[in-house]
């Protein structure tokens, strides 16, 4: 934590001093996540790109006033979220609060219920009827190949935006659960529900692909 804070202070100092390389680096490192978060609120990738651009311009203008009471990244994402919400309102788009606030309201099984024995089964209620196969015995190339990567990218693209944002931040970008919670303003349990569903769907897509004859 202390190291992160020190890194952050250095980052802020460098950017404030006009260090272009550092600024370009954080634009490169953070914009991907920012696009995913913006897409929770706005309708298209193109609008999300505008939101991210607008955010960075606000960051550049606001840097002299940044007080360092939060991490730079937290501050940038707060500006992003506000910018995206304003844009969504202007678009006349309802912000999908329920998707972030109450994802558990609509149940979504991680695995097709048909793959389990009935709850009333005499001996093995709720046990696997059609169990998963082991992937660690597959040729590594099958999992690491370009086609599998495309399957995974497509599966992520097809997720609801809030699930897509959470799996991107956690599993692509390697953010902690707490960072995601702060950036998306979601509760700990809702963050987990979104992550759970996202991973389950991507798993299913990989399964369908690697097990097709």
């Amino acid at each position: 934590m202390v190291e992160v804070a020190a890194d952050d202070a250095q980052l802020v100092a460098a950017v404030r001093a006009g260090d272009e390389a550092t600024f370009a680096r954080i634009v490169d490192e953070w914009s991907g996540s920012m696009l995913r978060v913006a897409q929770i609120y706005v309708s298209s990738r193109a609008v999300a790109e505008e939101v991210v651009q607008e955010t960075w311009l606000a960051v550049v203008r606001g840097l002299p006033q940044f007080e360092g009471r939060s991490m730079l990244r937290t501050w940038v994402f707060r500006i992003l979220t506000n910018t995206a919400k304003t844009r969504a309102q202007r678009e006349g788009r309802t912000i999908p609060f329920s998707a972030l606030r109450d994802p558990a309201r609509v149940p979504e099984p991680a695995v097709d219920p048909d793959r389990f024995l009935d709850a009333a089964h005499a001996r093995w209620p709720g046990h696997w009827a059609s169990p998963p196969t082991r992937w660690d015995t597959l040729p590594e190339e099958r999992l690491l190949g370009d086609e599998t990567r495309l399957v995974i990218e497509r599966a992520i693209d097809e997720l609801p935006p809030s699930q897509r944002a959470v799996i991107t931040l956690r599993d692509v970008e390697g953010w902690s659960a707490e960072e995601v919670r702060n950036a998306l303003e979601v509760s700990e349990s809702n963050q987990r529900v979104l992550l759970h569903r996202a991973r389950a769907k991507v798993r299913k897509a990989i399964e369908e692909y690697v097990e097709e004859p």
Partner: protein
Amino acid sequence: MSTVEALSCQEIVELVTDYLEGALEAEEHARVEQHLAGCTKCDAYLDQIRTTMRLVGRLDAASLPAETRHGLVEAFRSFTPRP
């Protein structure tokens, strides 16, 4: 339902994320571990989820169009003090 009743496989697949996140109560965590130790099918499922996380982690992050990025660096240059 008694607290010592074993979890079914269908329950396990819904607890996997909470389990990996360390978000379960100690007793529930122990029940999941106990199930996984005795169920090769759920163990395979957990392995699939871990592999999924690893494969997702290999993806490239999305990026801004080059001209947008270029414009931002230009804006940065014009807004910040030159040494």
